[in-house]
């Protein structure tokens, strides 16, 4: 098995992998934090509460950043996987499948014009179980590869 400890292409491959993880964390935490902040009224500094409708204009830029960072992270992950293809195991394969499904459902959500397809994309892309599985598989992949 080939792991990222030998020869040519191993350091760029490892860097690509960490880059994919980092950009994914930033992209997803950003959108989640924004959605949480938008749902809850924020406390004024002097006391009391104000509406978060002021955050609405920022939704599109935050969403665009989420899409861009996740896309870059996805392709970095694909490049990482292709370089280290000989070291493919079931955990890496599962991670690749989950990432591809998330990417595909995001594309459907963003670009589908037919109402039902868009709704399907929204449901599929936003499932909590996929987020949990993605985090678990990334952690597992890092643990296994560091162990080897």
């Amino acid at each position, binding site marked *: 098995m080939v792991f990222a400890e030998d020869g040519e292409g191993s350091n760029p491959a490892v860097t690509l992998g960490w880059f994919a993880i980092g950009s994914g964390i930033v992209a997803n935490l950003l959108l989640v934090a924004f959605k949480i902040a938008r749902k809850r009224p924020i406390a004024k500094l002097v006391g009391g509460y104000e509406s978060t409708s002021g955050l609405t204009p920022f939704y599109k830029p935050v969403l665009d950043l989420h899409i861009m960072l996740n896309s870059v992270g996805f392709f970095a992950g694909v490049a990482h996987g292709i370089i280290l293809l000989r070291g493919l*195991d*079931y*955990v890496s*394969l*599962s991670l690749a*499948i*989950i990432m591809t*499904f998330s990417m595909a459902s995001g594309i459907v959500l963003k670009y589908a014009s037919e109402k*039902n397809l868009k*709704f*399907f994309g929204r*449901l*599929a892309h936003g*499932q*909590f*179980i*996929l987020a*949990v*599985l993605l985090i*678990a*598989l990334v*952690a*597992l992949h890092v*643990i*296994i590869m560091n*162990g080897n």
Partner: protein
Amino acid sequence: MALVILAMSAPALVFAENEASEGTSESSEAQSATTAEHEANDNKSSSTNSDLILVVTIAAIVSVVGYSSWKVYKIRRRAASKALV
């Protein structure tokens, strides 16, 4: 819910296996044979866990697709019945 619990426990299972598989080296042939046998067993159970992870992943995706399709179908049916009324 069961899939979520299984997905969360998978890293702990594999981590425990990695720790268990790190053993100390032994000098005698009998001991090294025993060690080889243990390693084979560890590899086998590690492979089984990896298979399980892949199965869980595919099952999760299939269930998400199925659930989303069902929801879309339910809403279409409700809209169609309202249109008839």
